[in-house]
């Protein structure tokens, strides 16, 4: 078993993470490094398609078992539970009002799919196996947190939101969930033969595309951190750094309970530790417009995402390997 320092070094010196650091540092230094919006969206869809498809193929190879359903239930339960913990922690650590606490908590109950992709890639680089069905778990974890957060906020609807506007539609039909789950199902249907047919598109270029995307995400995260700095208090920053580890440890307990392997447990921990910055912010602008996006976007994108990518992922893997032998 590799030590936590070995895993951290392998992760930190991997090309995707170094490109993220390049984007982050370059942007902080004043570089106008950025990808056009359409390119960033295309790369994001490519990554969802590739990771979903490969996850589906892995399930096709190993079959659908009770462990898949246990993992899905665990993911949904974590997504519903973590906002409650986050909401309580925010009450103790910050002076945010109820609406903003609920909004931030929603982000930490839901997941960052890019962090998930980075974690699966780190596992591959380090040489740790994980179950392909975790793609489906990631998709399942997007939603419950939002519903719990709306309940926590005490209002599931704004008075300016039309009755026929579906928040659930916005959540379930956002492009990352549709592409991720769709590609996962196509991967199950077509199996290894389907993967062989398009491997030149989704296997060989994957790491290169991830590097390019993370270069951009590094720049976006640094810009988010700079522009949202005035909204950050020590309590909020502390929450953004502490909550991921709380979520990861709760997920570790769940993973032990349902008998996950160390690699799969580390992925579940990463999902629980990550905070959404694509799907949930858009849904909350519809459902909870009174909450301040500068707070939740800066926290999830400028604080938690870089921390998870550099320190969090190797830490979760090392902890999972240490606890689950």
């Amino acid at each position, binding site marked *: 078993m590799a030590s936590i320092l070995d895993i951290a070094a392998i992760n930190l010196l991997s090309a995707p993470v170094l490109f993220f650091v390049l984007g982050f540092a370059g942007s902080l230094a004043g570089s106008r490094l950025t990808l056009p*919006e359409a390119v*960033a*969206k295309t790369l994001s869809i490519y990554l969802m398609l590739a990771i979903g498809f490969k996850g589906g193929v892995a399930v096709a190879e190993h079959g659908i078992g009770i462990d898949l359903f246990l993992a899905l239930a665990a993911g949904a339960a974590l997504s519903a539970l973590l906002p409650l913990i986050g909401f309580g922690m925010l009450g103790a650590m910050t002076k945010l009002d109820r609406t903003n606490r609920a909004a931030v908590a929603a982000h930490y109950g839901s997941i960052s799919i890019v962090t998930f992709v980075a974690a699966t890639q780190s596992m591959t680089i380090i040489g740790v196996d994980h179950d392909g069905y975790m793609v489906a778990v990631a998709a399942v974890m997007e939603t419950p947190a939002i519903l719990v957060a709306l309940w926590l906020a005490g209002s599931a609807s704004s008075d300016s939101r039309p009755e026929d506007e579906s928040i659930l539609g916005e959540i379930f039909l956002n492009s990352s969930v549709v592409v991720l789950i769709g590609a996962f199902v196509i991967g199950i249907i077509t199996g290894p033969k389907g993967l062989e047919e398009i491997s030149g598109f989704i296997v060989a270029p994957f790491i290169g595309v991830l590097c390019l995307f993370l270069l951009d995400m590094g*720049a976006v995260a640094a810009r988010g951190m700079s*522009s949202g700095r005035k*909204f950050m208090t020590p309590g909020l920053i502390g929450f953004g750094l502490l909550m991921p580890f709380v979520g990861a440890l709760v997920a570790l307990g769940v993973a032990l309970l349902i008998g996950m392997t160390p690699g799969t447990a580390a992925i579940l921990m990463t999902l629980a530790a990550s905070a959404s910055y694509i799907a949930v912010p*858009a849904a*909350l602008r519809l459902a909870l417009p009174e909450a301040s996006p500068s707070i939740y976007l800066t926290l999830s994108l400028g604080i938690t995402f870089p921390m998870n990518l550099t320190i969090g992922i190797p830490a979760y893997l090392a902890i999972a390997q240490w606890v689950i032998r």
Partner: protein
Amino acid sequence: MKTYPKKQIRLICESPIADRMRKLLERAPISGYTLLPAVGGSGSEGAWMREGLVGDAGQMVVFLIILDESELQKVLDLLYGGMKAQMGIITISDVEVVRPERF
């Protein structure tokens, strides 16, 4: 060339509610509208740039609507009803058009 007076509503709103506003405009007594992406800006929630972002949150769009003054209040009430809790700006200005029958 002879020109004719009309009103222009300029609505700057958050990208996530663009669909909501489009649906409202389809019900409004107007002949059409134009939707533009905003490149970046700064306001009460800090500065933002469209480039690099992969999610809708944090982005703004601009609706331009030209209409006859007689319909202005009705359309304004409709639009404001859909965005009163959101970030955004509605301005009204006097414009001149060359083909009045189109508005």
